[in-house]
Protein backbone atom coordinates (compact mmCIF):
# COMPACT_ATOMS: atom_id res chain seq x y z
CA UNK A 1 0.00 0.00 0.00
CA UNK A 2 1.50 3.36 -0.92
CA UNK A 3 2.02 5.83 1.82
CA UNK A 4 -0.63 8.50 1.53
CA UNK A 5 -0.13 11.25 4.05
CA UNK A 6 -3.41 12.51 5.35
CA UNK A 7 -2.46 15.72 7.00
CA UNK A 8 -1.01 18.22 4.57
CA UNK A 9 -3.56 20.73 3.37
CA UNK A 10 -3.30 21.36 -0.30
CA UNK A 11 -5.50 24.27 -1.05
CA UNK A 12 -4.51 27.82 -1.78
CA UNK A 13 -1.52 29.36 -0.14
CA UNK A 14 -0.95 26.38 2.09
CA UNK A 15 0.84 24.57 -0.67
CA UNK A 16 4.50 25.37 -1.09
CA UNK A 17 5.20 25.07 -4.79
CA UNK A 18 8.93 25.01 -4.17
CA UNK A 19 8.85 21.73 -2.31
CA UNK A 20 8.63 18.91 -4.75
CA UNK A 21 7.45 15.55 -3.73
CA UNK A 22 9.84 12.66 -3.76
CA UNK A 23 10.39 11.80 -7.36
CA UNK A 24 9.58 8.22 -8.11
CA UNK A 25 11.57 6.32 -10.70
CA UNK A 26 9.98 6.88 -14.05
CA UNK A 27 10.24 4.79 -17.11
CA UNK A 28 8.23 4.18 -20.19
CA UNK A 29 5.99 6.56 -21.95
CA UNK A 30 2.88 6.01 -23.85
CA UNK A 31 0.92 8.36 -25.98
CA UNK A 32 -2.53 7.87 -27.22
CA UNK A 33 -3.85 10.01 -30.00
CA UNK A 34 -6.52 12.33 -29.06
CA UNK A 35 -9.82 13.69 -29.95
CA UNK A 36 -9.57 16.91 -31.75
CA UNK A 37 -8.63 19.06 -28.86
CA UNK A 38 -5.71 17.77 -26.92
CA UNK A 39 -3.22 15.16 -25.94
CA UNK A 40 -3.15 12.23 -23.63
CA UNK A 41 -0.25 10.97 -21.69
CA UNK A 42 -0.50 7.86 -19.67
CA UNK A 43 2.88 7.12 -18.27
CA UNK A 44 6.13 8.94 -18.21
CA UNK A 45 9.72 8.34 -19.13
CA UNK A 46 12.77 9.32 -17.24
CA UNK A 47 14.90 12.01 -18.85
CA UNK A 48 12.82 11.83 -21.93
CA UNK A 49 12.34 14.87 -24.05
CA UNK A 50 9.53 15.26 -26.47
CA UNK A 51 9.97 17.76 -29.12
CA UNK A 52 7.22 18.58 -31.49
CA UNK A 53 4.48 16.35 -30.29
CA UNK A 54 2.00 17.97 -32.56
CA UNK A 55 -1.50 16.72 -32.41
CA UNK A 56 -2.50 18.70 -35.43
CA UNK A 57 0.26 20.64 -37.05
CA UNK A 58 -2.03 22.34 -39.46
CA UNK A 59 -5.44 23.31 -38.33
CA UNK A 60 -5.84 26.35 -36.17
CA UNK A 61 -9.17 24.88 -35.24
CA UNK A 62 -7.57 22.33 -33.03
CA UNK A 63 -5.75 22.95 -29.82
CA UNK A 64 -2.36 21.35 -29.85
CA UNK A 65 0.35 20.26 -27.51
CA UNK A 66 3.69 20.84 -29.15
CA UNK A 67 6.06 19.69 -26.50
CA UNK A 68 5.82 17.31 -23.63
CA UNK A 69 9.14 17.44 -21.90
CA UNK A 70 10.00 15.11 -19.09
CA UNK A 71 12.94 16.49 -17.21
CA UNK A 72 14.25 15.64 -13.81
CA UNK A 73 11.64 13.03 -13.34
CA UNK A 74 8.57 15.12 -13.88
CA UNK A 75 6.22 15.67 -16.74
CA UNK A 76 6.57 19.20 -17.92
CA UNK A 77 3.68 20.46 -19.93
CA UNK A 78 4.68 23.10 -22.43
CA UNK A 79 1.68 24.22 -24.37
CA UNK A 80 2.24 26.30 -27.42
CA UNK A 81 0.24 27.43 -30.34
CA UNK A 82 -2.41 30.02 -30.53
CA UNK A 83 -4.43 29.46 -28.50
CA UNK A 84 -2.20 27.24 -26.37
CA UNK A 85 -3.22 23.80 -25.33
CA UNK A 86 -5.65 23.70 -22.49
CA UNK A 87 -5.76 20.06 -21.59
CA UNK A 88 -3.55 17.43 -20.11
CA UNK A 89 -4.94 13.95 -20.21
CA UNK A 90 -3.41 10.98 -18.49
CA UNK A 91 -4.88 7.64 -19.36
CA UNK A 92 -4.52 3.87 -19.53
CA UNK A 93 -3.02 3.94 -16.13
CA UNK A 94 -3.38 0.30 -15.39
CA UNK A 95 -0.79 -0.64 -17.99
CA UNK A 96 1.66 1.89 -16.70
CA UNK A 97 3.38 -0.40 -14.26
CA UNK A 98 5.96 2.10 -13.15
CA UNK A 99 3.37 4.65 -12.24
CA UNK A 100 0.41 2.58 -11.28
CA UNK A 101 1.55 0.92 -8.12
CA UNK A 102 -0.76 -0.92 -5.87
CA UNK A 103 -3.78 0.79 -7.27
CA UNK A 104 -2.40 4.32 -7.22
CA UNK A 105 -1.26 6.34 -10.17
CA UNK A 106 1.68 8.36 -8.97
CA UNK A 107 3.62 10.87 -11.05
CA UNK A 108 5.08 14.33 -10.93
CA UNK A 109 3.91 17.18 -13.06
CA UNK A 110 5.09 20.65 -13.85
CA UNK A 111 2.27 22.80 -15.08
CA UNK A 112 2.58 25.64 -17.53
CA UNK A 113 0.58 28.09 -15.52
CA UNK A 114 -1.05 28.54 -12.22
CA UNK A 115 -4.20 26.57 -11.58
CA UNK A 116 -6.49 28.21 -11.94
CA UNK A 117 -4.99 30.87 -14.10
CA UNK A 118 -6.37 34.33 -13.75
CA UNK A 119 -9.76 34.40 -15.31
CA UNK A 120 -9.98 30.67 -15.65
CA UNK A 121 -11.68 27.97 -13.71
CA UNK A 122 -9.52 24.93 -14.01
CA UNK A 123 -10.63 21.54 -12.92
CA UNK A 124 -9.69 17.92 -13.01
CA UNK A 125 -11.69 14.97 -14.14
CA UNK A 126 -10.95 11.38 -13.27
CA UNK A 127 -12.52 8.67 -15.36
CA UNK A 128 -12.57 5.21 -13.95
CA UNK A 129 -14.19 1.92 -14.72
CA UNK A 130 -16.48 0.51 -12.14
CA UNK A 131 -19.77 -1.24 -11.87
CA UNK A 132 -19.94 -0.53 -8.20
CA UNK A 133 -21.98 2.57 -7.50
CA UNK A 134 -20.08 3.11 -4.30
CA UNK A 135 -16.74 3.43 -6.06
CA UNK A 136 -15.17 6.84 -5.74
CA UNK A 137 -12.15 8.59 -7.21
CA UNK A 138 -9.58 10.39 -5.14
CA UNK A 139 -6.80 12.81 -5.85
CA UNK A 140 -3.87 13.75 -3.71
CA UNK A 141 -1.50 16.59 -4.52
CA UNK A 142 1.94 16.70 -2.97
CA UNK A 143 0.91 14.12 -0.47
CA UNK A 144 -2.00 16.18 0.71
CA UNK A 145 -5.24 14.89 2.05
CA UNK A 146 -7.30 12.90 -0.42
CA UNK A 147 -9.86 14.90 -2.33
CA UNK A 148 -12.92 13.02 -3.35
CA UNK A 149 -14.06 13.63 -6.87
CA UNK A 150 -17.67 14.52 -7.21
CA UNK A 151 -19.83 12.28 -9.32
CA UNK A 152 -20.63 13.72 -12.73
CA UNK A 153 -21.81 10.90 -14.94
CA UNK A 154 -21.92 7.20 -15.37
CA UNK A 155 -22.41 4.90 -18.26
CA UNK A 156 -20.99 1.66 -19.56
CA UNK A 157 -19.12 1.28 -16.34
CA UNK A 158 -17.27 4.55 -16.84
CA UNK A 159 -17.54 7.05 -14.07
CA UNK A 160 -16.40 10.62 -14.20
CA UNK A 161 -15.15 12.22 -11.06
CA UNK A 162 -14.85 15.97 -10.97
CA UNK A 163 -12.24 17.81 -8.94
CA UNK A 164 -13.42 21.37 -8.89
CA UNK A 165 -11.32 24.46 -9.21
CA UNK A 166 -10.86 25.43 -5.62
CA UNK A 167 -9.03 22.21 -4.90
CA UNK A 168 -6.50 23.03 -7.57
CA UNK A 169 -6.03 26.65 -6.70
CA UNK A 170 -2.76 25.97 -4.96
CA UNK A 171 -0.95 24.73 -8.03
CA UNK A 172 1.51 27.17 -9.47
CA UNK A 173 3.39 27.20 -12.69
CA UNK A 174 6.88 25.78 -13.03
CA UNK A 175 7.02 23.82 -9.83
CA UNK A 176 6.96 20.09 -9.35
CA UNK A 177 3.75 18.59 -8.03
CA UNK A 178 3.28 15.03 -7.12
CA UNK A 179 -0.09 13.82 -8.32
CA UNK A 180 -1.68 10.66 -7.05
CA UNK A 181 -4.96 9.33 -8.34
CA UNK A 182 -6.81 6.24 -7.21
CA UNK A 183 -10.23 4.77 -6.92
CA UNK A 184 -11.69 3.32 -3.82
CA UNK A 185 -14.78 2.48 -1.92
CA UNK A 186 -16.00 4.33 1.13
CA UNK A 187 -12.84 3.49 3.03
CA UNK A 188 -10.73 5.74 0.84
CA UNK A 189 -8.12 3.01 0.52
CA UNK A 190 -6.83 2.34 -2.98
CA UNK A 191 -8.67 -0.47 -4.66
CA UNK A 192 -6.82 -2.92 -6.81
CA UNK A 193 -10.07 -4.21 -8.20
CA UNK A 194 -10.99 -0.97 -9.88
CA UNK A 195 -9.28 0.65 -12.80
CA UNK A 196 -8.62 4.31 -13.31
CA UNK A 197 -9.16 4.91 -17.00
CA UNK A 198 -7.78 8.37 -17.26
CA UNK A 199 -7.63 11.71 -15.64
CA UNK A 200 -7.37 15.08 -17.15
CA UNK A 201 -6.52 18.57 -16.14
CA UNK A 202 -8.35 21.40 -17.71
CA UNK A 203 -6.12 24.38 -17.63
CA UNK A 204 -8.72 26.76 -18.89
CA UNK A 205 -12.37 27.50 -18.26
CA UNK A 206 -14.00 24.16 -18.03
CA UNK A 207 -15.77 22.98 -21.10
CA UNK A 208 -14.93 26.03 -23.14
CA UNK A 209 -13.25 25.60 -26.44
CA UNK A 210 -11.24 28.76 -26.86
CA UNK A 211 -10.96 28.23 -30.53
CA UNK A 212 -14.54 28.75 -31.42
CA UNK A 213 -16.27 29.59 -28.20
CA UNK A 214 -18.40 26.49 -28.19
CA UNK A 215 -18.97 24.50 -25.08
CA UNK A 216 -18.79 20.84 -24.22
CA UNK A 217 -15.65 19.62 -25.82
CA UNK A 218 -15.77 15.85 -25.83
CA UNK A 219 -12.53 14.63 -24.37
CA UNK A 220 -13.47 11.09 -23.57
CA UNK A 221 -10.47 9.05 -24.62
CA UNK A 222 -12.59 5.97 -25.02
CA UNK A 223 -14.98 7.40 -27.53
CA UNK A 224 -12.76 9.93 -29.16
CA UNK A 225 -13.06 11.00 -32.72
CA UNK A 226 -9.54 12.15 -33.17
CA UNK A 227 -7.96 13.20 -36.36
CA UNK A 228 -4.25 13.78 -36.24
CA UNK A 229 -1.32 12.41 -34.32
CA UNK A 230 2.34 13.05 -34.96
CA UNK A 231 5.19 11.77 -32.85
CA UNK A 232 8.90 11.95 -33.63
CA UNK A 233 12.26 11.49 -32.01
CA UNK A 234 11.32 9.48 -28.95
CA UNK A 235 12.67 6.42 -27.21
CA UNK A 236 9.84 4.56 -25.57
CA UNK A 237 11.90 1.68 -24.30
CA UNK A 238 9.68 -1.32 -23.76
CA UNK A 239 6.54 0.73 -23.34
CA UNK A 240 3.58 0.31 -25.57
CA UNK A 241 2.65 3.00 -28.05
CA UNK A 242 -1.08 2.68 -28.24
CA UNK A 243 -2.70 4.49 -31.14
CA UNK A 244 -6.19 3.33 -30.32
CA UNK A 245 -7.57 6.68 -29.39
CA UNK A 246 -9.28 7.28 -32.66
CA UNK A 247 -6.93 9.48 -34.62
CA UNK A 248 -7.45 9.03 -38.30
CA UNK A 249 -4.02 10.20 -39.39
CA UNK A 250 -1.08 8.89 -37.35
CA UNK A 251 2.56 9.55 -38.08
CA UNK A 252 5.43 8.19 -36.01
CA UNK A 253 8.97 8.87 -37.11
CA UNK A 254 12.60 8.46 -36.10
CA UNK A 255 11.92 6.68 -32.86
CA UNK A 256 12.80 3.63 -30.88
CA UNK A 257 9.60 1.79 -30.08
CA UNK A 258 9.20 -1.87 -29.26
CA UNK A 259 5.45 -2.27 -29.34
CA UNK A 260 2.75 -0.48 -31.27
CA UNK A 261 -0.89 -1.32 -30.96
CA UNK A 262 -4.02 -0.08 -32.68
CA UNK A 263 -7.35 -1.44 -31.58
CA UNK A 264 -10.89 -0.38 -32.32
CA UNK A 265 -9.69 2.60 -34.20
CA UNK A 266 -10.89 4.21 -37.35
CA UNK A 267 -7.48 4.93 -38.67
CA UNK A 268 -7.22 6.06 -42.25
CA UNK A 269 -3.55 6.64 -42.59
CA UNK A 270 -0.74 5.22 -40.51
CA UNK A 271 2.81 6.18 -41.32
CA UNK A 272 5.74 4.63 -39.46
CA UNK A 273 9.17 5.68 -40.66
CA UNK A 274 12.60 4.86 -39.31
CA UNK A 275 11.48 2.90 -36.28
CA UNK A 276 14.09 0.80 -34.51
CA UNK A 277 13.68 -2.02 -32.04
CA UNK A 278 10.14 -2.80 -33.11
CA UNK A 279 8.96 -6.17 -31.90
CA UNK A 280 5.24 -6.08 -32.51
CA UNK A 281 2.80 -4.12 -34.61
CA UNK A 282 -0.65 -5.17 -33.56
CA UNK A 283 -3.77 -4.21 -35.47
CA UNK A 284 -5.95 -6.84 -33.88
CA UNK A 285 -9.44 -5.47 -33.58
CA UNK A 286 -8.77 -2.49 -35.79
CA UNK A 287 -11.21 -1.24 -38.33
CA UNK A 288 -10.62 0.92 -41.33
CA UNK A 289 -13.03 3.44 -42.69
CA UNK A 290 -13.91 3.10 -46.34
CA UNK A 291 -11.49 3.06 -49.18
CA UNK A 292 -8.36 5.11 -49.40
CA UNK A 293 -6.88 3.81 -46.17
CA UNK A 294 -3.11 4.00 -46.28
CA UNK A 295 -0.42 2.09 -44.47
CA UNK A 296 3.08 3.47 -44.84
CA UNK A 297 5.93 1.52 -43.26
CA UNK A 298 9.47 2.47 -44.12
CA UNK A 299 12.79 1.52 -42.61
CA UNK A 300 11.44 -0.59 -39.78
CA UNK A 301 14.24 -2.32 -37.92
CA UNK A 302 13.61 -5.07 -35.44
CA UNK A 303 12.19 -8.56 -35.22
CA UNK A 304 8.71 -7.24 -35.73
CA UNK A 305 5.73 -9.55 -35.75
CA UNK A 306 2.60 -8.25 -37.42
CA UNK A 307 -0.79 -9.02 -35.96
CA UNK A 308 -4.04 -8.41 -37.78
CA UNK A 309 -2.46 -6.39 -40.53
CA UNK A 310 -3.56 -8.49 -43.46
CA UNK A 311 -6.60 -7.32 -45.30
CA UNK A 312 -6.80 -4.10 -43.35
CA UNK A 313 -5.47 -1.38 -45.60
CA UNK A 314 -6.35 -0.63 -49.18
CA UNK A 315 -3.23 1.24 -50.12
CA UNK A 316 0.22 0.43 -48.86
CA UNK A 317 3.67 1.91 -49.06
CA UNK A 318 5.98 -0.56 -47.41
CA UNK A 319 9.72 -0.73 -47.82
CA UNK A 320 12.78 -2.08 -46.08
CA UNK A 321 11.25 -4.41 -43.53
CA UNK A 322 13.38 -7.47 -43.02
CA UNK A 323 10.87 -9.43 -40.99
CA UNK A 324 7.91 -9.10 -43.36
CA UNK A 325 7.21 -12.43 -45.05
CA UNK A 326 3.71 -11.97 -46.46
CA UNK A 327 1.14 -9.28 -47.03
CA UNK A 328 -2.48 -9.12 -48.05
CA UNK A 329 -4.26 -6.12 -49.41
CA UNK A 330 -7.67 -5.33 -48.06
CA UNK A 331 -10.58 -7.10 -49.62
CA UNK A 332 -12.69 -4.88 -51.80
CA UNK A 333 -10.09 -2.18 -51.57
CA UNK A 334 -9.64 0.31 -54.27
CA UNK A 335 -6.10 0.35 -55.51
CA UNK A 336 -5.57 3.98 -56.01
CA UNK A 337 -2.81 6.45 -55.61
CA UNK A 338 -2.79 8.16 -52.30
CA UNK A 339 -3.28 11.81 -52.99
CA UNK A 340 -0.09 12.91 -54.62
CA UNK A 341 1.68 9.64 -54.09
CA UNK A 342 1.70 6.67 -56.38
CA UNK A 343 -0.38 3.72 -55.29
CA UNK A 344 0.75 0.50 -53.73
CA UNK A 345 4.39 -0.07 -53.00
CA UNK A 346 5.89 -3.10 -51.35
CA UNK A 347 9.62 -3.23 -51.91
CA UNK A 348 13.01 -3.87 -50.32
CA UNK A 349 11.70 -6.62 -48.09
CA UNK A 350 14.31 -9.38 -48.29
CA UNK A 351 12.12 -12.12 -46.83
CA UNK A 352 8.82 -11.28 -48.47
CA UNK A 353 7.50 -14.44 -50.12
CA UNK A 354 3.83 -13.71 -50.71
CA UNK A 355 1.65 -10.79 -51.72
CA UNK A 356 -2.02 -11.42 -52.05
CA UNK A 357 -4.87 -9.29 -53.20
CA UNK A 358 -7.52 -10.99 -51.15
CA UNK A 359 -10.96 -11.08 -52.61
CA UNK A 360 -11.57 -8.41 -55.13
CA UNK A 361 -9.29 -5.47 -55.75
CA UNK A 362 -11.05 -2.69 -57.55
CA UNK A 363 -8.91 -1.46 -60.37
CA UNK A 364 -7.72 2.10 -60.39
CA UNK A 365 -9.64 4.45 -62.47
CA UNK A 366 -8.86 4.41 -66.11
CA UNK A 367 -8.05 8.08 -66.21
CA UNK A 368 -5.42 7.71 -63.56
CA UNK A 369 -3.49 4.51 -64.13
CA UNK A 370 -0.11 6.17 -63.94
CA UNK A 371 -0.67 7.11 -60.36
CA UNK A 372 -1.73 3.66 -59.29
CA UNK A 373 1.06 1.22 -59.96
CA UNK A 374 1.66 -1.86 -57.92
CA UNK A 375 5.33 -1.57 -57.11
CA UNK A 376 6.83 -4.84 -55.95
CA UNK A 377 10.44 -4.13 -56.74
CA UNK A 378 13.55 -5.33 -54.94
CA UNK A 379 12.04 -8.30 -53.17
CA UNK A 380 14.61 -11.06 -53.59
CA UNK A 381 12.40 -13.75 -52.06
CA UNK A 382 9.26 -13.08 -54.09
CA UNK A 383 9.29 -15.77 -56.72
CA UNK A 384 7.47 -16.31 -60.00
CA UNK A 385 4.72 -18.41 -58.51
CA UNK A 386 4.02 -15.68 -55.95
CA UNK A 387 3.84 -13.06 -58.68
CA UNK A 388 1.52 -15.20 -60.78
CA UNK A 389 -0.72 -15.70 -57.77
CA UNK A 390 -0.84 -11.95 -57.27
CA UNK A 391 -1.78 -11.45 -60.92
CA UNK A 392 -4.51 -14.03 -60.52
CA UNK A 393 -5.83 -12.18 -57.49
CA UNK A 394 -6.23 -8.91 -59.31
CA UNK A 395 -9.40 -7.95 -61.01
CA UNK A 396 -9.33 -6.39 -64.44
CA UNK A 397 -7.21 -3.30 -64.47
CA UNK A 398 -7.80 -0.05 -66.17
CA UNK A 399 -5.71 -0.06 -69.26
CA UNK A 400 -2.22 1.02 -68.42
CA UNK A 401 -2.14 0.26 -64.74
CA UNK A 402 1.42 -0.65 -63.95
CA UNK A 403 2.75 -3.63 -62.03
CA UNK A 404 6.45 -3.15 -61.47
CA UNK A 405 8.25 -6.35 -60.46
CA UNK A 406 11.78 -5.42 -61.32
CA UNK A 407 14.52 -6.99 -59.23
CA UNK A 408 12.24 -9.53 -57.63
CA UNK A 409 13.26 -13.15 -57.50
CA UNK A 410 10.38 -14.07 -59.79
CA UNK A 411 10.92 -11.43 -62.46
CA UNK A 412 12.60 -13.96 -64.69
CA UNK A 413 10.09 -16.77 -64.42
CA UNK A 414 6.67 -15.25 -63.88
CA UNK A 415 3.85 -15.20 -66.39
CA UNK A 416 3.09 -11.56 -67.26
CA UNK A 417 0.38 -12.64 -69.69
CA UNK A 418 -1.94 -13.32 -66.76
CA UNK A 419 -1.78 -9.66 -65.86
CA UNK A 420 -1.65 -8.15 -69.33
CA UNK A 421 -4.79 -10.05 -70.27
CA UNK A 422 -6.46 -8.12 -67.49
CA UNK A 423 -5.23 -4.79 -68.80
CA UNK A 424 -2.09 -4.29 -66.74
CA UNK A 425 1.32 -3.18 -67.88
CA UNK A 426 3.98 -5.41 -66.37
CA UNK A 427 7.51 -4.15 -66.02
CA UNK A 428 9.97 -6.88 -65.22
CA UNK A 429 13.35 -5.96 -66.64
Amino acid sequence: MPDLPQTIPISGENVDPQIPAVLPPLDGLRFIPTPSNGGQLSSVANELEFNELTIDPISDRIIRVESLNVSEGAIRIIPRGNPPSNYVIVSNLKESEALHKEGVFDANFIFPRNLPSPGTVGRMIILFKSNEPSTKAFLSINGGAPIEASYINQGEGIVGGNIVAQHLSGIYANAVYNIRVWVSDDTGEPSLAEEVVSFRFDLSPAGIDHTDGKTSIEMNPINSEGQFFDLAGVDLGDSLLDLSGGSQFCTVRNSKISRISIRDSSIRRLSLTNITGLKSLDFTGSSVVGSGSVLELKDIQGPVTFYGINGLFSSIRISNIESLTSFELKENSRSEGTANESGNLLSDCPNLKSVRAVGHIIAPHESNPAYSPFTLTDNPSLDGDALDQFYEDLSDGASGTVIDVRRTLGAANHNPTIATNKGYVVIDS
Partner: protein
Amino acid sequence: MSSLIHNLYFPIPEANKCIALNYKSGTTSIARALIAQFYLDTAKSIENAHYPEGFDRTKFKPQGLVPHINDPEGLEVLLLCRNPLDRFISAMKETESFLSKDEIFKQMSSGEGIKNLHFFKQSRFMVTGNERAFRLEDQLEVFEQESGLKLEKFNSHKDKPSLTKSEEKLVRDYYKEDFKLWENGNI
Protein backbone atom coordinates in the same frame (compact mmCIF):
# COMPACT_ATOMS: atom_id res chain seq x y z
CA MET B 1 -6.65 17.26 -44.90
CA SER B 2 -4.70 18.12 -48.01
CA SER B 3 -2.36 20.08 -45.79
CA LEU B 4 -1.24 16.83 -44.27
CA ILE B 5 -0.27 15.45 -47.61
CA HIS B 6 3.30 16.35 -48.28
CA ASN B 7 4.51 17.73 -51.54
CA LEU B 8 6.53 15.59 -53.86
CA TYR B 9 9.54 16.57 -55.91
CA PHE B 10 11.59 15.02 -58.68
CA PRO B 11 15.27 15.53 -57.86
CA ILE B 12 17.36 16.41 -60.89
CA PRO B 13 20.40 14.12 -60.87
CA GLU B 14 23.76 15.81 -61.00
CA ALA B 15 22.20 19.13 -60.07
CA ASN B 16 21.39 20.80 -56.80
CA LYS B 17 17.81 21.23 -57.91
CA CYS B 18 14.50 19.47 -57.94
CA ILE B 19 11.21 19.90 -59.74
CA ALA B 20 7.91 20.24 -57.94
CA LEU B 21 5.45 17.54 -58.90
CA ASN B 22 2.71 19.93 -59.91
CA TYR B 23 0.00 17.90 -61.56
CA LYS B 24 -1.70 19.19 -64.69
CA SER B 25 1.31 21.29 -65.48
CA GLY B 26 3.61 19.21 -67.61
CA THR B 27 4.50 16.45 -65.17
CA THR B 28 4.22 13.69 -67.75
CA SER B 29 6.64 15.44 -70.06
CA ILE B 30 8.96 16.25 -67.19
CA ALA B 31 8.94 12.64 -66.03
CA ARG B 32 9.62 11.36 -69.52
CA ALA B 33 12.50 13.77 -69.93
CA LEU B 34 14.04 12.78 -66.62
CA ILE B 35 13.82 9.10 -67.51
CA ALA B 36 15.23 9.63 -70.97
CA GLN B 37 18.15 11.67 -69.72
CA PHE B 38 18.99 10.17 -66.34
CA TYR B 39 17.22 6.87 -65.71
CA LEU B 40 18.23 4.77 -68.67
CA ASP B 41 17.42 1.45 -67.02
CA THR B 42 13.89 2.64 -66.41
CA ALA B 43 13.65 3.82 -70.01
CA LYS B 44 14.72 0.34 -71.10
CA SER B 45 12.17 -1.24 -68.78
CA ILE B 46 9.38 0.88 -70.25
CA GLU B 47 10.53 -0.11 -73.71
CA ASN B 48 10.51 -3.81 -72.82
CA ALA B 49 7.41 -3.88 -70.64
CA HIS B 50 4.52 -6.23 -71.32
CA TYR B 51 1.58 -4.17 -72.49
CA PRO B 52 -2.08 -5.11 -72.70
CA GLU B 53 -3.77 -5.09 -76.06
CA GLY B 54 -4.33 -1.60 -77.40
CA PHE B 55 -1.73 -0.02 -75.15
CA ASP B 56 1.90 0.85 -75.73
CA ARG B 57 4.74 2.85 -74.27
CA THR B 58 3.59 6.10 -75.88
CA LYS B 59 0.48 5.98 -73.70
CA PHE B 60 2.47 5.14 -70.64
CA LYS B 61 2.48 7.77 -67.88
CA PRO B 62 5.78 7.37 -66.09
CA GLN B 63 5.46 9.67 -63.09
CA GLY B 64 5.22 6.76 -60.70
CA LEU B 65 8.54 5.36 -61.90
CA VAL B 66 10.61 8.48 -61.38
CA PRO B 67 12.37 8.70 -58.02
CA HIS B 68 10.89 11.42 -55.91
CA ILE B 69 11.54 13.03 -52.57
CA ASN B 70 9.30 14.55 -49.94
CA ASP B 71 11.72 17.09 -48.57
CA PRO B 72 13.57 19.43 -50.93
CA GLU B 73 15.80 20.79 -48.21
CA GLY B 74 19.05 22.03 -49.63
CA LEU B 75 17.76 21.91 -53.17
CA GLU B 76 16.48 24.69 -55.33
CA VAL B 77 12.89 23.97 -56.29
CA LEU B 78 11.77 24.61 -59.85
CA LEU B 79 8.03 24.94 -60.35
CA LEU B 80 6.34 24.93 -63.71
CA CYS B 81 3.27 27.02 -63.03
CA ARG B 82 0.25 26.97 -65.29
CA ASN B 83 -2.61 29.41 -65.73
CA PRO B 84 -4.80 28.31 -62.82
CA LEU B 85 -8.01 28.53 -64.79
CA ASP B 86 -6.68 26.42 -67.64
CA ARG B 87 -5.21 24.00 -65.15
CA PHE B 88 -8.50 23.71 -63.31
CA ILE B 89 -10.38 22.95 -66.51
CA SER B 90 -7.75 20.40 -67.47
CA ALA B 91 -8.10 18.79 -64.06
CA MET B 92 -11.86 18.64 -64.52
CA LYS B 93 -11.33 16.83 -67.79
CA GLU B 94 -8.84 14.46 -66.19
CA THR B 95 -11.26 13.51 -63.45
CA GLU B 96 -14.60 13.93 -65.17
CA SER B 97 -15.50 10.26 -65.16
CA PHE B 98 -15.38 9.93 -61.40
CA LEU B 99 -15.56 13.45 -60.01
CA SER B 100 -18.56 15.52 -60.96
CA LYS B 101 -18.50 19.26 -61.36
CA ASP B 102 -20.96 19.58 -58.49
CA GLU B 103 -18.70 17.57 -56.22
CA ILE B 104 -15.67 19.63 -57.18
CA PHE B 105 -17.39 22.89 -56.35
CA LYS B 106 -18.85 21.39 -53.20
CA GLN B 107 -15.38 20.47 -51.99
CA MET B 108 -14.07 23.82 -53.09
CA SER B 109 -16.44 25.59 -50.75
CA SER B 110 -16.15 23.10 -47.91
CA GLY B 111 -13.24 24.73 -46.17
CA GLU B 112 -11.02 21.69 -46.58
CA GLY B 113 -10.58 22.31 -50.27
CA ILE B 114 -10.65 19.96 -53.21
CA LYS B 115 -9.12 16.68 -52.17
CA ASN B 116 -8.09 15.38 -55.57
CA LEU B 117 -4.43 15.98 -56.23
CA HIS B 118 -5.02 17.42 -59.68
CA PHE B 119 -6.74 20.35 -58.05
CA PHE B 120 -4.19 21.03 -55.33
CA LYS B 121 -2.99 24.59 -55.38
CA GLN B 122 0.26 25.31 -57.13
CA SER B 123 1.22 27.90 -54.55
CA ARG B 124 1.53 25.16 -51.93
CA PHE B 125 5.04 24.60 -53.22
CA MET B 126 6.14 28.11 -52.28
CA VAL B 127 7.39 27.20 -48.85
CA THR B 128 10.95 28.22 -48.08
CA GLY B 129 11.74 30.99 -50.50
CA ASN B 130 14.12 28.67 -52.32
CA GLU B 131 11.60 28.10 -55.10
CA ARG B 132 11.48 29.53 -58.57
CA ALA B 133 8.26 29.50 -60.56
CA PHE B 134 8.14 29.52 -64.33
CA ARG B 135 5.03 30.14 -66.37
CA LEU B 136 4.30 27.14 -68.52
CA GLU B 137 2.82 29.32 -71.21
CA ASP B 138 5.73 31.63 -71.93
CA GLN B 139 8.69 30.71 -69.74
CA LEU B 140 9.13 27.09 -70.76
CA GLU B 141 12.47 27.69 -72.44
CA VAL B 142 13.86 29.26 -69.30
CA PHE B 143 12.57 26.30 -67.32
CA GLU B 144 14.30 23.93 -69.71
CA GLN B 145 17.54 25.85 -69.39
CA GLU B 146 17.38 25.87 -65.63
CA SER B 147 16.38 22.23 -65.29
CA GLY B 148 18.57 20.90 -68.04
CA LEU B 149 15.59 18.97 -69.40
CA LYS B 150 14.35 18.90 -72.95
CA LEU B 151 10.61 18.53 -72.74
CA GLU B 152 8.46 16.99 -75.39
CA LYS B 153 5.25 18.55 -76.57
CA PHE B 154 2.55 18.63 -73.94
CA ASN B 155 -0.60 16.62 -74.34
CA SER B 156 -3.77 18.62 -74.60
CA HIS B 157 -7.27 17.43 -73.89
CA LYS B 158 -9.97 17.98 -76.44
CA ASP B 159 -13.58 18.73 -75.58
CA LYS B 160 -12.66 20.49 -72.39
CA PRO B 161 -15.37 21.27 -69.86
CA SER B 162 -16.65 24.80 -69.73
CA LEU B 163 -17.41 27.04 -66.79
CA THR B 164 -20.11 29.59 -66.26
CA LYS B 165 -19.13 33.11 -65.28
CA SER B 166 -20.08 32.47 -61.68
CA GLU B 167 -18.13 29.22 -61.61
CA GLU B 168 -15.14 30.96 -63.07
CA LYS B 169 -15.35 33.58 -60.36
CA LEU B 170 -15.36 30.85 -57.71
CA VAL B 171 -12.31 29.30 -59.32
CA ARG B 172 -10.51 32.63 -59.40
CA ASP B 173 -11.30 33.20 -55.74
CA TYR B 174 -10.23 29.71 -54.75
CA TYR B 175 -6.96 29.93 -56.63
CA LYS B 176 -6.22 33.58 -55.95
CA GLU B 177 -2.75 32.77 -54.55
CA ASP B 178 -2.06 30.67 -57.63
CA PHE B 179 -3.13 33.49 -59.90
CA LYS B 180 -0.86 35.86 -58.04
CA LEU B 181 2.01 33.42 -58.38
CA TRP B 182 1.33 32.79 -62.02
CA GLU B 183 0.87 36.45 -62.92
CA ASN B 184 3.86 37.73 -61.03
CA GLY B 185 6.16 34.77 -61.24
CA ASN B 186 9.30 34.76 -59.18
CA ILE B 187 12.02 33.64 -61.51
